[in-house]
């Protein structure tokens, strides 16, 4: 296998950027392009998109270094739990209030770390949500509900 065809993070990044650039340029053709003297909203993004696609291509075609960095194993557990926790916060903050949103979010993301026990997760979630109410509602008076409405 030639060193040129190795799937390095660099190469993947370059390909992703090329696609992003092309997609951006393609989407921008929906907007009016105009002329150089009377530029429409499409002109600048199309230009940027094509430039980005070109640079992405250059990155993806660069020769692989002799010792290419390998793709590390993605931290699936942490990623899923962080996404779930933040998602929970976003879903509950408007309707169920700060306490429930914070407590559930902190509880869920805590398990991203393998050292977390159910006891420590509950402790942290209670502490953080109590502090949150105290700091953000009482002290800073942010327009956020503490509980459901």
């Amino acid at each position, binding site marked *: 296998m030639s060193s040129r065809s190795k799937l390095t993070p660099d190469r993947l990044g370059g390909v*992703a950027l090329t696609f992003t650039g092309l997609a951006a340029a393609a989407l921008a053709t929906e907007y009016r392009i105009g002329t150089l003297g009377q*530029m*429409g*909203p499409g002109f600048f993004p199309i230009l940027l998109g094509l430039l980005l696609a070109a640079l992405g291509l250059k990155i993806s075609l660069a020769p692989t270094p002799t010792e290419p960095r390998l*793709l590390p194993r993605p931290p699936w557990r942490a990623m899923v739990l962080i996404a779930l926790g933040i998602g929970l916060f*976003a879903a509950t903050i408007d309707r169920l209030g700060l306490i429930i949103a*914070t407590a559930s*979010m902190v509880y869920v993301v805590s398990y991203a*770390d393998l050292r977390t026990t159910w006891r*420590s997760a509950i402790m942290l979630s209670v502490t953080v949500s109590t502090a949150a109410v105290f700091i953000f509602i009482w002290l800073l008076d942010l327009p956020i509900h503490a509980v459901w409405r």
Partner: protein
Amino acid sequence: MSFLDNLIMGFGVALTPETLLACAIGVTLGTAIGVLPGIGPIVGISLLLPLTFDLSPTNALVMLAGIYYGGLYGGSTAAILLNLPGTPSAAATCLEGYPMAKSGRAGVALLLTTLASFVGGTFSIIVMMAFSVPLTSLALAFGSAEYFSMMVLGLIAAGAISAGSPTKGMAMVLLGLLLGIVGTDVETGQFRYTFGFMQLADGISLVVLAMGLFGVSEIMFNFASGTAKPTMKASDITVRSLLPSRDEMRRSWPAMGRGSVLGAAIGFLPGAGATIAAFIAYAVERKISTEPHRFGKGAVEGLTSVEAANNSAAQAAFIPTMTLGIPGNAVMALMMGALMIHGITPGPLIVSEQPQLFWGLIASFWLGNLFLVVLNAPLVVVWVRLLTVPYNVLFPIILFLICIGVYSINNAPFDIVLVLILGFVGYLMRLADLPPASLMLGFVLGPLLEQHLRRALLLSRGDGSVFITHPISAGFLLMAVAVLIWSFRTRKRLA
């Protein structure tokens, strides 16, 4: 108004109790943020930005600026004691600071760091005071063509110099420019890249972008590298024998001078910043030293020059941000965003229209540096204690602060989801070694760049030669080309 009058007015503003308090809170929080690995000044400033909405613009800016240079100071503390650079610029501090600490000179290193930071900061503040007014009058003569070309220079410098690979840096600048387009086109009202989400009509919030790319992705990355940041032991660090020897002082003074001058010159350039200044200062010290073999084993001049340079550069970076409205790095981009949130447009008029804010801020820098000397020297032990907070307690708290910080801007759950998505994007960018700081700068300058490009070409009736026929504009573009060629050539030589 004379120089002295401005100075007196500035101190008049900075010495009011509220501003003094804002400054003290800023530098103290900043130091804490700098010490903790995983929250750099960008995340720190983004986190605290929503909390400054109730303050006056001056106090808000004084506090945020305090977080920035306080953060640099804290970053050095962690670098010296534990070889952990809390901020990118502190990576150069590790080189001599940590060997000094290992040989039992931690106290000396910390004291000299404080002193060097103060000297560097003070030097740069004097330069700022002297140069911002003449620079402002120059900037008033700028038209759209000049602004456009200057921003092109800044963006190319940011992309080409700061990152490892100039191609990647430039690609990130372009991606940032594209992200800056999201929202409503100011001139035609056209929605661009909003994908039908009304929440995107005003564009992506700078805070959301910064917290996603820097905050959330950093946490994911820490889990990826499997280390999940070890727990620190503070027990073996004592701050004994604080006083440097006569020989160490003799070596330090000239190094601080060199670092200060270098830092001010580099910090002033768009696209450069404290990190680059620190590394260049280190390289210079090593080059001119008569005993280069001492370097890497705790050479005190390598520490003081670096510290003077990074602080000097950090302060000098405010000059282009405030007077030209062109931020030189990602932190300055956030500062500019903060100003705009408070209804103030940075630019040449800021000095004449908001003299209280401008001179008050500069005076507060000096007071802030003084605070750092007085407050932090005795607090070193406390900062080291901070490092003993285990990561499995720290990261949920950081994530919570990100969520609440983002939500408090618009009370929009949509922004929280966006921060998560950007966190994943930032994680992938890190894997591919794509620099997020270049992206941030492109994002902030994008709307301005497009606006000036359109306006310049409108005035010239579509004649693209305006950028070359205007001498100042042509000069900027020439410099941009030179930077581009230089960066690719040095890259080749290194490879």
